[in-house]
């Protein structure tokens, strides 16, 4: 991954963006092609892998396990509410294979940043997932959703891909069915090991995705490549859900954005995000239909898995 950029290259990119032509021929608001596949990891509750163009590759595994309810909070009301919900724990890791700079401790700060961003959106009020449904016994046990994102290859636009892949992995996640029985000591629960009884995690369709808009010169672009990322002054992350509602905004980078441009960028982010979600959902549906067709015809459901190439 390049860490230095020459002034000539920088000028070239800025001028290109100004004329709505980027180095690979895309327009300012064009995404690279996204290939998604779910259900690659049999031992996880849900999984997905997304490849963006010929570069960025993100693999997300979701593991649903039983855990203690989170009872922390200063306020009595907050504690009461938390005791009736499940938990979502996010973890993003940049594998050293993705880029030279992720070796050793190089990726630590970056990992933290990505994890916090993902965590903030998914655990926020617009997170989408129905956490109440994930509670088993209020005040005691609940389902803990562990989301592990692993970045296998880096070619720009990591955060967007992490969100998109997380959403796809949650679509693929199944939560085992719990049976609650009343005994003299209180409530006891059991869950069936049979995967047929497991139900899809509720609320996955409301999980937002992120669109990173990068300000280059006086214009903004979507889906930056590593070289473009080096010329960026300021970055705006817009989290959008499928209804086009903005679920979160975060500004990054050392430059500044004028308020009028800021509004425009958020609007653009919202429209593009909604469009991406639509395409993504279509692809997921198509994949699911094909998989069930293959199962009905008793054909082996061979996943392209890591051999998927464009």
């Amino acid at each position: 991954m390049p860490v230095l950029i020459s002034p000539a290259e920088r000028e070239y990119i800025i001028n290109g963006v100004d004329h709505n032509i980027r180095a690979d021929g895309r327009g300012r608001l064009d995404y690279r092609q996204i290939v998604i596949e779910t259900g690659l990891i049999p031992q996880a509750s849900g999984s997905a892998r997304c490849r963006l163009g010929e570069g960025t590759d993100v693999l997300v595994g979701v593991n649903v396990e039983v855990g203690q309810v989170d009872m922390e909070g200063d306020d009595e009301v907050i504690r009461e509410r938390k005791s009736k919900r499940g938990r979502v724990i996010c973890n993003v890791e940049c594998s050293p294979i993705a880029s030279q700079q992720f070796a050793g401790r190089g990726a630590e700060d970056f990992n933290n940043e990505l994890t916090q961003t993902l965590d903030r959106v998914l655990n926020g009020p617009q997170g989408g997932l129905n956490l109440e449904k994930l509670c088993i016994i209020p005040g005691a046990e609940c389902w803990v959703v562990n989301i592990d994102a692993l970045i296998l290859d880096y070619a720009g636009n990591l955060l967007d891909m992490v969100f998109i892949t997380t959403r796809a992995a949650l679509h693929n996640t199944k939560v085992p069915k719990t049976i609650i029985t009343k005994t003299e000591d209180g409530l006891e629960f059991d869950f069936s090991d049979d995967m047929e009884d497991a139900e899809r995690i509720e609320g996955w369709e409301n999980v937002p995705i992120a669109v990173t808009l990068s300000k280059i010169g006086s214009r903004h672009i979507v889906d930056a490549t590593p070289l473009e990322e080096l010329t960026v002054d300021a970055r705006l992350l817009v989290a959008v859900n499928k209804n086009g509602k903005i679920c979160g905004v975060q500004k990054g980078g050392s430059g500044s954005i004028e308020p009028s441009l800021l509004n425009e960028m958020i609007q653009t982010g919202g429209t593009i995000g909604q469009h991406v979600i639509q395409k993504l959902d279509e692809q997921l549906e198509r994949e699911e239909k094909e998989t069930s067709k293959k199962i009905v015809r008793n054909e082996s459901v061979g996943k392209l898995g890591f051999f998927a190439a464009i």
Partner: protein
Amino acid sequence: LRIDGRRATEIRRISCKPSVLSQADGSAYIEQGNTKCLAAVYGPREPRQKSAILHNRANISVGVSFAPFATSERKKWGKSDKRLLEIASFVKQTFEPVIQTSSFPRSQIDIFLQILQFDGGTVQICINATTMALVDAGIPMNDYVCACTAGVIQQVPILAYDDKLMSQDNPVDLNLIEESSNSPEVTVAILAESGKVTLLQSESRLSLKKLQAVAQLAKAGCREICDVMDKALRKNVKDLFGKMEA
């Protein structure tokens, strides 16, 4: 017949592909049964730390990581987990004499391995993936290095230590369940052309009489794996040539 339906001397289904990553100088993805590994090679390039500079040859560094969802129970592996460091040192030790490091003095070759799913045979799959990634990166080596595990399952009564019987019962290319059982197991890495052994590792008690037979079995397994890897690498180069001609 073993737990997964294989015969004693049958290796797991293996598929591999080089050149899978866009940023690395060389990369490979290999699947042996349910164990999946991605390898990336960066180098030769300038060392990050001055202390790593060797005046007469290249410095090789290996890093191994497991994904949290690699095992059936989710587990977050720390960067300096002792087991991972040990596997990394085995890989480094295996490749140091094979890579022609004297061609690149004062430089560094980084090998990173990411295990995506784990079902037994980490050291062997790491070595196999590294070989393919190094070839893909164009780093000159003396030979292919292929690795395989072999074990001993005691199904015969103690008196019958017959050579013929042993070669019938000893399993090759163990998966996780077989590894976790208390039977002894040996990992062998060989150079494909010369047949020389570059790594022989075993943590269990194994009598010397059996060691010979078990090592032979592992070598045979290595040869099979080597054929598959060689085919995949040649196919990749042919494809590249095809694209250039068109």
